[in-house]
């Protein structure tokens, strides 16, 4: 464990190991998303209530999963950065934030599109959509705070603290929004909260979720690696690398 943490201290090591892992995740992401899309759109049976419009679930649910997971990973990276002062963790967190915000937006947008056939309107103050909207604001706050500092070290620490504060609050927000929703709009049809989905429907969904996660890991590895090069551009190993490739 210690040896691993000490290795993580070295951006160079992360850069090298990332290069080896990255192709694997790209291939996995491409394959899984392709299979999931084709299966979900073409072969999975239509929903008996919603018809074909339910197929948007194959984008909506994975992006919603990812949006929440990314916030948690961001906070974990922040914790690692604050406790062990591992800069790579902070670089990864910085790269995750925009992706997480984008995923939250995708899930909100797909939810809104899905709302048209199911509710007949683009927006309902549905518990899930409301929680997602708040999550989007949390992401925007972290991104804005990081951008507001002149010193990057301070920006990193502030963003880490905010991510950790946010992650403690996410479950509280989620439960309170659920409570609020049941209080104000009892027994409304929720778009994803159904049990007993047949295997032909959820198998492609599972594949899509895995595909999205692979995509997230691959993209984060790639962006973190380029961020390492940017931030360490005056270190010797980066210069040697640049010189060797020229």
């Amino acid at each position: 464990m210690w040896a691993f943490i000490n290795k993580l201290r070295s951006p160079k090591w992360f850069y090298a190991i990332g290069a080896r892992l990255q192709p694997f995740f790209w291939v996995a992401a491409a394959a899984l998303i392709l299979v999931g899309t084709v299966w979900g759109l073409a072969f999975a049976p239509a929903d008996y209530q919603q018809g074909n419009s339910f197929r948007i679930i194959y984008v909506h649910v994975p992006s919603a999963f990812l949006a929440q997971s990314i916030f948690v990973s961001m906070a974990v990276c922040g914790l690692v950065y604050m406790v062990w002062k591992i800069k790579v963790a902070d670089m990864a967190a910085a790269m995750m934030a925009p992706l997480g915000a984008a995923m939250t937006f995708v899930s909100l947008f797909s939810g809104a599109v899905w709302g048209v056939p199911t509710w007949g309107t683009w927006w309902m103050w549905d518990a899930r959509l409301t929680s997602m909207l708040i999550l989007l604001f949390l992401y925007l706050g972290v991104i804005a705070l990081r951008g507001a500092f002149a010193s990057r070290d301070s920006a990193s620490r502030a963003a880490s603290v905010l991510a950790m504060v946010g992650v403690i609050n996410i479950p509280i927000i989620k439960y309170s929004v659920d409570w609020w929703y049941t209080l104000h709009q009892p027994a409304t049809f929720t778009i994803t909260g159904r049990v007993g989905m047949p295997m032909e429907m959820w198998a492609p969904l599972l594949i899509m979720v895995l595909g999205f996660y692979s995509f997230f890991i691959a993209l984060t590895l790639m962006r973190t690696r380029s961020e390492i090069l940017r931030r360490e551009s005056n270190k010797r190993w980066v210069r040697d690398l640049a010189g060797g490739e020229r």
Partner: protein
Amino acid sequence: MPSGETPMIDTDDRPVADGEPRGGLTVAVWATLKRDLTLLLRRRSEVLNPLVFFALVITLFPIGISPDPQLLATIAPGLLWVAALLAALLSLDSLFRGDYDDGSLEQLLLTPQPLAMLGLAKVAVHWLLTGLPLAMMAPVLGIMLSLPAGSYPTLAFSLALGTASLSLIGAIGAALTVGLSRGGVLLSLLVLPLYIPVLIFGAGAVQAAILGDGAAAHLAILGALLALALMLAPWAIAASLRISING
């Protein structure tokens, strides 16, 4: 040196060990409370401004929506809570800014006392002079919005309880943004999403009191949120202040 000998601590005759004597913390927290109260009471407008803002925002709604008492009565709990929440947010930016600007914050960080406790003292003053007055003023504005009778004590109590959580959570944001020259708008962006649970249960309590459901459950949850904030927020505030002072 006037007296020729240099005791490490002037008033305490005990030798300085690793731990500061416990009395030191009480004295320091008490002095900080007193200092901040004095400071704010010398600049009364800073205390009054959020209250005036609260009244003003509440005035806007009947004008903007409709003076119909029935309509106002249905939306009054939410309106009062949202307006009070925004008013409490208004004065948050100045919570640590004065101390940051004149260098007292550095000194606060260098006392042998735990920073979290001293920060808590400052938050307590903020609540005493913002949250509590807002809570006491809310019933008056409730009358103007034809808030149904019977819910007034719940309104005041839920606001008093809730604004304490708001001050604690908001202080984290204030501590994070105190080093930024224009932190005000950013502060609200950071803090407002975190306010949502308090708003839900606060407005819910008033709503429940109107419906006769018994607001106890809501108030209990508000109390639980406050307990959680009291446990966690001081540490986050201290950590954020340390970050800001070196920004």
